[in-house]
């Protein structure tokens, strides 16, 4: 890495940005971009990078290619992947062994290696280039898109894509009030979930009396299956920091905190390095670029409590107290960190700020719907072909995300529900697939935008089981202050657990509903107020499934272990012994080419046989024995 020097003044920085941009544009070398966020690394990107370095060296191409190790490209399904610029050839699911071929064929000889290209699961066609891939086509990647072009550990790389131009613009051309007006006009709303207008929050903090003000970046992302904030912090930390610096200018804050969970070691490392580089270049600290503006940034590591994503709990956590929410008002904008006016925004919100300043409020508000502007990043996970981070304009329908971008449900199964908004969100059924996504429509449908988790479920998912899973998460993550939330989630979990075990009784659903509404109404913070959503939304859209569990002691999806047993369908069984090998308890009997049999006293219902069977010869059926037993007891 080039040694960084201190920028003397505004002109100096401006010149460096121009230089970097020019160098980037005139670049003639081929650039190999390897996605290496946490997810990429988990799937072996580091080994691929090592192999790549070796191969480049071995082929003597060291001066002809640039290897850029970036954050997440968003396409998790295809990790580890690389894109070769300027052609934008996209290779996916690589192993260290594949790399040599790629370097020899594509880099040296300019030929595309077909077998590493992305293959559309539906059309079975190979896509040569990144922009041909359906996953990327319908997205509008204004925040995530730059991840591909920057090495997150290099400030110069960030400057080369026009980084810190927005900051310079805000510093030299804008009055703080003008910045706030621009953000207000853009219609940007908090990306953390509640969707409070960002500009209004900034204005309130600015107007609050007091000399000392703080800004906080909320990177405490705790939803199961959600990792938008992590990827932004990992892939483009400077964008978030720049957003915070612009926010500090506008609000009049001199100190800021980045609250990031310690379970994101790579994000912590990249942000720490970024802050360090900004200090070294004089972009943070006292009298930045020789102006009056001074700003300090601290990194505060969270210990992984879900509730600390709630702003007052987060503030308590930074102060060193137990992460417990408190009553608002006073709002953090009035009395926040150490009782000083504090503006707290989500990672994604901060990352949007430089774009708004650079491109103007009109540009931003031209994207999205009447009430919700801009784009939103969702982490599309679960039973979906193209798992990954998708950034889409507000107002896009669920169908477009799931079928066009996500590529539909694997193995030709039917779509059942999509869970949005993390554990406090709700499950939306197939009838709502054409729902345009924005803050209001999701709330009206009984879910929330949340920070952007999107879990797709297929027909083999039991909604009682889903509700139980989320309740189990919430009863564990509730801080326990309000009895409504602590006992409410616990009791709801107990009831749903009983239902899933076939112990449900008439009246359970009514009690569940009553309790859910009370929990929603009586709790103090957002966690408790939304804790009932998994129950209420599943009850609203999948009530018959709950009823089947209670009255018929039947799990329609064949998931709830207490209500099913696995049986071999003799007509379909080929006697291949695949299930027999998969069974951990030797509960399957049968010789080769003979119909197998499951011994029920040995079967622990793990479902391994079901997964192993390629002929759909194993089925989860209603367990008659247990039902009779239960009915007698009832």
């Amino acid at each position, binding site marked *: 890495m080039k040694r960084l020097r201190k920028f003397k003044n505004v002109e100096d920085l401006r010149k460096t940005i121009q230089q970097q941009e020019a160098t980037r544009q005139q670049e003639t070398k081929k650039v190999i971009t390897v996605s290496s966020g946490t997810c990429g690394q988990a799937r072996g990107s580091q080994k691929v990078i090592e192999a790549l370095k070796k191969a480049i060296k071995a082929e003597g191409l060291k001066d002809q290619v640039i290897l850029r190790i970036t954050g997440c490209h968003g396409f998790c399904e295809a990790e580890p992947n690389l894109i070769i610029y300027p052609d934008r050839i996209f290779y996916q699911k690589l192993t260290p062994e594949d790399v040599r071929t790629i370097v020899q064929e594509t880099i040296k000889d300019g030929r595309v290696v077909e077998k590493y290209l992305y293959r559309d699961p539906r059309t079975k066609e190979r896509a040569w280039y990144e922009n041909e891939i359906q996953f990327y086509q319908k997205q509008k990647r204004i925040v995530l898109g730059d991840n591909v072009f920057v090495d997150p550990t290099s400030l110069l790389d960030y400057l080369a894509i026009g980084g810190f131009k927005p900051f310079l613009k805000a510093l030299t051309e804008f009055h703080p009030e003008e910045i706030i007006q621009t953000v207000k006009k853009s219609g940007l709303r908090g990306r953390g979930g509640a969707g409070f207008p960002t500009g209004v929050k900034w204005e309130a903090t600015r107007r609050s009396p007091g000399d000392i003000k703080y800004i906080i970046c909320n990177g405490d992302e705790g939803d199961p299956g959600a990792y938008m904030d992590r990827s932004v912090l990992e892939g483009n930390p400077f964008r978030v920091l720049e957003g915070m610096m612009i926010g500090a200018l506008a609000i009049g804050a001199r100190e800021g905190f980045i609250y990031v969970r310690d379970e994101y070691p790579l994000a912590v490392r990249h942000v720490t390095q970024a802050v360090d580089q900004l200090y070294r270049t004089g972009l943070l600290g006292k009298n930045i670029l020789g102006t009056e503006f001074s700003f300090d940034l601290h990194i505060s590591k969270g210990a992984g409590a879900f509730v600390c994503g709630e702003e007052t709990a987060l503030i308590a956590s930074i102060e060193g107290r137990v992460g417990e929410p408190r009553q608002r008002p006073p709002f953090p904008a009035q009395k926040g960190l150490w009782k000083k006016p504090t503006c707290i925004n989500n990672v994604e919100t901060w990352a949007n700020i430089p774009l708004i300043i650079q491109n103007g409020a009109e540009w931003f508000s031209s994207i999205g719907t009447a009430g919700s502007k801009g784009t939103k990043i969702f982490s599309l996970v679960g039973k979906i072909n193209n798992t990954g981070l998708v950034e889409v304009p507000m107002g896009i329908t669920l169908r477009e995300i799931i079928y066009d971008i996500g590529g539909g449900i694997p193995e030709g199964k039917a779509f059942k529900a999509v869970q949005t908004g993390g554990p406090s969100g709700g499950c939306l059924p197939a009838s709502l697939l054409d729902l345009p996504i924005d803050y209001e429509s999701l709330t009206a449908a009984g879910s929330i935008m949340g920070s952007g988790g999107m879990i797709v479920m297929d027909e083999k998912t039991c909604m009682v089981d889903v509700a139980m899973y989320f309740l189990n998460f919430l009863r564990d993550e509730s801080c326990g202050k309000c*009895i409504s939330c*602590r006992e409410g989630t616990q009791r709801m979990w107990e009831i749903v657990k009983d239902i899933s075990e076939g112990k449900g009784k008439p009246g359970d659903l009514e009690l569940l509903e009553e309790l859910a509404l009370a929990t929603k109404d009586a709790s103090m913070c957002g966690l408790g107020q939304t804790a009932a959503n998994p129950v209420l939304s599943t009850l609203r859209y999948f009530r018959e499934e709950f009823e089947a569990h209670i009255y018929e002691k039947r799990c329609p999806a064949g998931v709830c272990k207490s209500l099913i047993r696995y049986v071999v369908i003799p007509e379909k069984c080929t006697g291949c012994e695949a299930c027999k090998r998969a069974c951990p308890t030797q509960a399957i009997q049968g010789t080769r080419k003979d119909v197998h049999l499951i011994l029920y006293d040995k079967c622990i219902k793990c479902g391994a046989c079901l997964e192993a069977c390629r002929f759909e010869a194993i089925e989860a059926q209603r367990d008659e024995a247990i039902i009779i037993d239960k009915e007698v007891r009832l």
Partner: protein
Amino acid sequence: MITMKINGVEVKAEEGWTILETAQFYGLEIPTLCHHEGLSPYGACRLCLVEIGEGAKAKLVSSCTYPAEEGLIVHTDTRRVIKARRMMIELMLSVAPYSKVIQDLASKFGVTRMRFTIRNEECILCGLCIRMCAEQMDGKAIGFQNRGYQRKISTPFDIRSEECRLCGGCIYICPACQLRCQGPQAETALCNACLTMDPTCLDYYDELQCWMYDAGRCGTCVREKK
């Protein structure tokens, strides 16, 4: 002075008062278990819920922590409030069924069913003892441990704390654990005896000795019934 409306009546509150304090000043009764004048407000028991605002924006807040605000519209006993309050009592009853205070609340607010499995923990985690110890006794010997359903009150590392002077402040202030329900059905989860009680004190005194909210405190009628 802050002017606001509680139950349709215009009231004035001093700067810094909470809704609960204002209501109490005007003699309006709002039930609460985790609030104490001498301690900082906490908002854990959710009994002091009131409805603020009007129409679609109306919401429930704990009056012990919500500051009195100019022009605020408060209703202390709407259907929504009562419903939530009853559920809170039912939840508390399910963890501390032998507490007389909670049994009395159940009777008073018409909680006639207890539909949850009993977990006899005798503690509703209102946090009064912790605040008493820290704020009045300057001890900080006890505190909350864990979170969510595993939350409990204990000393650090579950061993006897050196900070503890055995002053008994925590026991003194506990609303749940000290008084045992003495009613005829005290052994069941929901006694409700006070609900149908025929006060026998009139046989002995010229004046009724207790009202609903103090029912059975003297214990006379209950003993007589036995």
